[in-house]
Structures are given as structure tokens and as C-alpha cells.
């Protein structure tokens, strides 16, 4: 993860630490493990000959392998690139073309949200989707919002950084597709928290981060998104304005994967990437003093915090955990599990669903046995997936913090999803 792209496979000592940590290898024998399909198989792949192996397609892209590797082998990046080669040779199925474009889905279906949501939740419709294009009935497809975040916060949408207001620190918020089309309230809470802590929040020009396209092997399209985002965010980065996001998967894409997986390069990208932050990383690094001066009202409940794989891969630890533990009355346990299983679009696919579910089983069981009131996780696909499989409410840490800061009502229990 914290490595340069390109050739690192020869650093592999074959120690199998990655295999022992891999959440997918733990539950299925269709996947030989990240080392086997990564640095090991790479030695036998030739750039001019067809890919000799397919089992790498079971890699979920969670990135655990790279993170635990003691030798700096970019195992996950190698595997993601191998998967993309397979896609190039065999072409992505229609389903993957859909699943990898949440921005388009949002753009077309959000205006007809009520109808779209009813349809997507209808058992019959899901059965058809399963049998035709291979979206599993178990997939957690969230409801669309009618009014996107950008529409709600139109006044903040700007192409160029505004002049700073006196005493305020400018911050650009990268919301991503999920906040824009599915969870705009979350975005508004994030904005409210930042403003309360002395920031002037702008919504810069942005398109889908491109991670779903990348995960599904559609690298050219993903690179297009990358270039567009870099050019949209550059005017802000050039003025030293931090780019903060609530989706740890989007932000990892911007911070790291544009370069390490997609191979995008250049000073513009470097400037933008370096100024990207996970929300709680930013709070801890830059707004900690302001935060310590804010009164936090008690939330008397117990919760379990599940740090998503992508968040761990940021390499900044679990900043939300420390901050949430400051809230009086709130008992926050740390999840035992490595990965919840969904891995972005992986868990939505009919042929991968059972594996994804098996990966997450340990977490689901832990949650059911724990008796916690709710669950906290930073990535949207993890939240929707855990909620679907446990019936517990799963929230982003910013929602909890906003509630404790009095910036909105934080309901501990809800009707579930």
C-alpha cells in the first residue's frame, strides 16, 4: 500500500503472511491466496501471451495482503492489475458495466427515486436481476435519494476556490457518488461538523472516484475519472486547500490507487493526492484543538466500530475510534473481524455472494452476540452490507460525532434497512 507501483514482486520471500491474513482464502478453496495469484503467478505471466490463470478473479481487492506484507510487496495492486488483464481479454459482463458506474445509476435513477427504490427491493425484480445479469438477491442495494447532495448544497458548488472568509479555514469536501445519490444527509452532517470547527466548506467539481470501474477491471474508464478529478481538484490543491472525504474507499482511490494501481502520474496528481484526507484523519491532525473545545453531549449506548479494509489501508490507523471514544457514555468496541466481506461491488455479484457472505460471517456472528445498539463503519458499501445481514443500524462515525456535537439528532435505534 505505501509503495510505488510497478515491480515489487521480486521482494516476496514467500512467507505466506499475506495468505494467512487473506479474508477470502480463509473461506473458499476457489482462491489459492494472494501470494499464489500475485507475486508467485506473476513470474509465469507473459505480457504478450494470454493470462494462464483465472483464480485471481476471486480476489476481492480488499488490500489486506499489501498492508500486512513485511517486505513492501504490492500484492493487492498486482492482483487488481491481473484481474484487469483478465477483463481485457474476456471483456466485462454487462452487470459489471452497471455496477461500476454508480454515478450514471444515480444520475438516471435518483430523479425517479421512489419508483426505482421500490423496484430494486421487489423480490421478483431481484430474482430477474440474478438470473439475467448476475446481481445477487443478497446484494445490499441502497435506496436512492430524490434530491442529491449537490442540489441541496448548490451554493457550495464551485469550480474555483472562493476567497477565504476571515478566521475560517477553507476545506474542499469530496463527497463521492454514495453521499451524493444515496446518503446526502450524511454529507450535510459532515459539512456541519467541519463548519462548527471553523471551516469554510466548498464542494469542488468532482466525478465518481473510479474505484468501482477499477475493481471491475475497466482501467481506461477509471483513468478517465482520475484525470477529471485531478483537474477539478487541482485549483484547490494548488492553494493548499485540503480535500476531505467521508468515504474511505473514494479517498484511498484518490490518495493512492490512481498512481499505484492505475499508473497515473504527474505533479498535478501528486499535489492533489498529498492533500487528500479521510475525514477523521483530518479532524485528528488539523482540527484536534478545535474539537477538544467543543462540548460533546453523552450518547448512552454501546457500539461496535468496524474499520473498513480501505480505511486501514490509508495507513493512518483508526482515527475515528479514538475520537468516538471521547464521547461520554458511548462504549465503543473494536471489531475482531478483518473484512466484512462486501469489498465494494464484489458482494453484489451472484457468483461471489456466497464467498462474500462467508467472509463476513464472523463479524455478523460477533455483532449478533455482542448486544451492541449499533455499528459504526466508514465505508458505505460496508455499512449497507452489514446492515442488511444483521438488521442492526450501521452509521458513519461522522453521524455519531455530529449527534454528540448537537448538529442533528442521532437516533440510536432505527427501523433498519
Amino acid at each position, binding site marked *: 500500500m505505501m509503495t510505488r507501483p510497478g515491480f515489487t*514482486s*521480486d*521482494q516476496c*520471500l*514467500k512467507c505466506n503472511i499475506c495468505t494467512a491474513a487473506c479474508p477470502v482464502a480463509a473461506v473458499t*478453496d476457489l482462491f489459492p491466496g494472494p501470494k499464489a495469484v500475485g507475486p508467485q503467478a506473476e513470474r509465469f*505471466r507473459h505480457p504478450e501471451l*494470454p493470462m494462464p490463470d483465472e483464480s485471481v478473479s476471486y480476489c476481492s481487492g480488499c488490500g489486506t495482503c499489501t498492508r500486512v506484507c513485511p517486505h513492501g510487496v504490492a500484492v493487492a495492486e498486482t492482483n487488481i492489475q491481473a484481474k484487469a488483464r483478465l477483463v481485457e481479454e474476456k471483456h466485462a459482463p454487462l452487470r459489471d458495466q452497471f455496477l461500476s458506474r454508480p454515478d450514471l445509476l444515480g444520475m438516471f435513477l435518483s430523479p425517479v427515486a421512489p419508483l426505482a427504490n421500490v423496484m430494486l427491493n421487489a423480490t421478483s425484480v431481484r430474482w430477474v436481476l440474478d438470473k439475467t445479469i448476475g446481481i445477487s438477491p443478497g446484494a445490499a442495494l441502497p435506496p436512492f435519494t430524490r434530491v442529491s447532495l449537490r442540489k441541496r448544497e448548490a451554493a457550495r458548488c464551485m469550480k474555483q476556490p472562493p476567497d477565504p472568509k476571515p478566521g475560517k479555514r477553507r476545506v474542499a469536501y469530496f463527497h463521492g457518488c454514495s453521499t451524493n445519490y444515496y446518503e446526502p444527509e450524511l454529507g450535510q452532517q459532515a459539512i456541519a461538523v467541519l463548519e462548527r470547527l471553523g471551516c469554510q466548506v466548498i464542494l469542488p467539481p468532482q466525478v465518481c472516484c473510479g474505484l468501482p470501474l477499477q475493481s471491475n477491471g475497466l482501467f481506461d474508464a477509471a483513468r478517465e475519472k482520475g484525470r477529471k478529478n485531478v483537474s477539478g481538484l487541482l485549483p484547490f490543491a494548488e492553494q493548499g486547500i485540503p480535500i476531505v472525504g467521508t468515504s474511505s474507499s473514494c479517498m484511498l482511490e484518490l490518495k493512492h490507487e490512481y498512481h499505484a494501481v492505475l499508473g497515473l502520474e504527474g505533479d498535478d496528481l501528486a499535489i492533489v493526492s498529498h492533500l487528500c484526507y479521510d475525514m477523521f484523519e483530518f479532524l485528528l491532525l488539523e482540527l484536534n484543538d478545535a474539537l477538544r473545545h467543543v462540548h460533546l453531549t453523552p450518547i448512552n449506548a454501546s457500539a461496535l466500530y468496524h474499520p473498513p479494509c480501505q480505511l486501514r489501508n490509508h495507513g493512518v490507523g483508526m482515527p475515528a475510534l479514538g475520537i468516538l471514544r471521547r464521547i461520554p457514555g458511548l462504549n465503543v468496541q473494536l471489531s475482531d473481524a478483518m473484512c466484512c466481506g462486501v469489498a465494494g461491488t464484489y458482494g453484489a455479484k451472484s457468483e461471489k455472494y456466497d464467498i462474500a457472505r462467508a467472509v463476513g460471517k464472523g463479524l455478523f456472528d460477533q455483532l449478533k452476540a455482542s448486544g451492541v445498539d449499533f455499528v459504526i463503519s466508514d465505508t458505505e458499501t460496508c455499512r449497507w452490507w452489514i446492515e442488511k445481514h444483521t438488521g442492526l443500524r450501521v452509521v458513519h462515525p461522522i453521524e455519531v460525532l455530529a449527534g454528540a456535537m448537537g448538529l442533528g439528532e442521532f437516533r440510536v435505534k432505527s427501523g433498519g434497512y
Partner: protein
Amino acid sequence: MQNLDVDLLVIGGGATGMGLAWDACLRGIPVVLVEAQNLAEGTSGRYHGLLHSGGRYVISDPVSARDCAAENAVLRRIAPEAIEDTGGLFLALNDDPEDYPDQWLRGCHEAGVPAREISLREVLAREPLLTHDITRAFEVQDGALDSFDLLHALHLNITRLGGMVLLGHRVQALRREHGHVVGAEVLRPDDGTIVTIHARRTVNAAGPWAAQVAQMADVDIPLALGKGTMVAMAERLVHTILNRCRLPGDGDILVPVGTVMVLGTTDVPVEEPGDRSIEPWEVDMLLAEGAALIPSLPDRRALRAWAGVRPLYRPPSDEDETRELPRSHVILDHAGDGAAGLISVFGGKLSTFRLMAEETLDHLALALGNNQPCLTTEVPLFGDEASYYTLPSRLRTIEDRSDPDKSPELVCECELVRRADIERVLERRGVQELDTLRRELRIGMGPCQGGFCGYRTAAIVQETILDAPPDGGLLSFLQARWRGNRPVAWGQTLRQMAFTRRVYMDLFHAQDMDGGDA
């Protein structure tokens, strides 16, 4: 089997000797070959893997170049399975003599070496890790040749045709009758008895040991020993063979061989045929020369180093420098040296082994009363359906899920060697040593250098072979790997060595086991 009576005795189990035995079999000449150690123990097993296009010698040794070009085509036809069709590039860099490439191209044309100039854009698209410092680039028909596969195929064919190959049989003396050499006495490895071989003609194809063999008939041969060191990089950084377009020098060949990339080589005059010493300057020089072609090379992992001794012909003009000696082969009939019946063959390249054999047997045919034509240009070594080796082949085999309930049971994960492959070899040969398994199957040749497969393989040997040592040969196997790692013991390779120690000394406490005469 204390006495053998044949027409031809071949001494030496390298490519030359095996080629001779095979050609003899095809001509119907009864033959026995004796090899003191193992197949490819000598020079044939310790080279850089290059199937020469001939391009390297067009200026410095045009005879050799012509032979290589012709044999290149023949070997591709008869032994494609031992060859990867990588192609080769000759690259002139900014610092190289500007007039050499055109001169070289003319030399190729004259020697019958196919060569084609290509654009820099094409060459960089093909090999993205190459330096941009290239001025001219040419494509040739180099290939990567696996000498073990070749020698094993020869062995199989010879045996099938009724020839005899005696491994581990060391020549104790040449038999002389009235000043003629009429065979040899060899030592059997298992019981120490002597086998007496009667042969009408004896060919000394003992490579670097040829002088010692000739001495047994009181003959001096003009043999010069040039030791060459090679370094294997842990992974293929290029998929095409790279040559510098300048007069041949040290370290100017990079060969992708199987899953590694070999940097070669040096040329150091030595006295001992078995000299395998490696000096730090040799390794550093090879890496520096490689870096001139692949700038990122210093960041990459050097896996191991080894050395082999070339048996070169030193013509009477007597040079100390072995680099300048002709690479073309020489056939000496010692009838004029008071040892009629003995022929010595040495020099040449592995790529021209077949030609060396053909010429030697043509010379001997009359004396042996044989007028069969040479068939080695036409008879395939691997069967009629054979095709080139390709890099992905082993992985494709492992990934075959036609039997979904069967796991591949990989013993060597780095080189994808299965338990079934090992059992097959153990069955066939009654093999005792892990080293034989290593040569045949490439166990322990990958990045872990025996760290994992050593344990598994030794245990399989220990439980399968009746007289196996208690450690299954584990310690000496690991020691052999250790030896090859030492010259490049820094960076990841030193870490690998530390890892091996951690597992076998710390976790397994193998150091007290019996069987380690390491």
C-alpha cells in the same frame, strides 16, 4: 556388468558427449557414455542459457557465428521444447562505438545470421524497462535454451535407442594396447568395483576435464580454462534476450531463462576444471553492466550466482587472455600423439553441440566401418508434436480445474512443482539426492531458495527412499542453495537467507540432524 564391449566410448555427460552418443545411436553405432558426476554437472549446466543467433561472434569469430546461425535453426526444429522463442536484441548505447552497428550488420549478413533493424519506439514498447539511452536496435533469433531439459531428452532418446549412459562412473584409466587407446576402466559408484570398457574408439568430451583425461594417455591438449560467473535476478525484467552491440565483453548478455533473468558473464583464466569461486568484483560488474541496459536493475533482487568453466581451445600462438580465444570447436585425433583410438573434442558453444558431434562421428565413421548418414538434424528429440516452451505453461497446468476435487499438491510453490512430479522422478530413477530433483524439476530455484520446498521435498524423499539419510538430504540441499546465495547476500536475498535460518535453525532446530555433511 564388469565388462562392456562397444564400438564407441564417450567420456563426458555434457552436451557434447550426449550429442555424440545420440548421433552414434542413430547411426547404429554401439555406444556407452560415462560421466563422472551427473548430467550437466559441468559446463553444460553452468551457463547463461543462450541459444545463440550467432550475432555475438560475427566480427570476432565469424566461423563460430556461422555455425551458431545454422545450428540455431536446427535445434529449433528438433528440440523446441527445450527452447523459449524469446528472440534477441542487439542494442547500441550512446557510449558504444558509433561505427560498430553497421559493421556488425554486414557481418551478420556475411555469416548468415538473420538480423533486422528496428526503431527505438518499437524496442521500448516491447521492453519498457530498457534504458532510453539506445541509439540503434536490432532484432535477432536468439532463444533461451534449457540445457537440463535438453540433456534429459538426449538421455531418454539414447537409452531408448539402446545406448548406455553410466552416470557417476569416473574414468580411472584409459586402456592401452600397443600404443592404441582401446577403452577405459571406470569406477562404479555403488560398490567401488571397476567396469572394464572395450571400445574401438574413445572420444574425450570431458569439457574442462579434457586435459586430465588426455593425460591418462600421456597426451597434452591445448586446453585453456576460462571461468565465467553468472547472476540470476529473481524475476524476468525483460522477456527478450539483450546483447550489447559492441565487441563481446564481460557482462553484456541478459537472458530470461524460465522464471529468472540471467546476467552473464565473466572470463577469468583458471587452473582447476572445477573452479567455481566467485569474486565480489565479478558480481558487482555483472550488475553494473546490466544496469546500463536496465536502469532500474540496482533496485531489483539478485537471487543467486554460480560459475562454470569453459573448455577453450588455445591455439599454439598462446594467449593468456581467455576472452580472445576462438569459441569455435576443435577435434583432435591423437593418432599423431601416440594415442591412436583417442579423439578429443572441446571448445565450441552449447548451441553447436550437435554439429560438434556430427563432425566427430563423420571423422570416426570410416574407422568404425559405419556409413550411415547423420540423422540428428531431422529426428526430433521431444516427439513430433513438440512446440516451444512458453513461460505460462506450468501455471496453466496447475490451474487446470478439470478435476475439481484434486488439489495440485504443490511442493515447490515458487516453481510450481507438484508432489506427483517428484514421485514420478523418484520412481523412475531411484534418485537419492535432492539435487537431482532440483535439476530436473527446478525445486528450490525460485525466490524462496528451498525455504519451503526444502522441507517438503526432503520429507518426501525420506519417507519414500529406503536408504535416505534421516534428514532426507535437507541440510545439504539447503547448503547448496546457501552457497549460491552468498555472492549476492544483501537486500532481499540476505533477508531470505535470514528467513531460511529462522525456519530451519530456530523453528525446526535441524542443525543437529544427521545427514548434514554440509
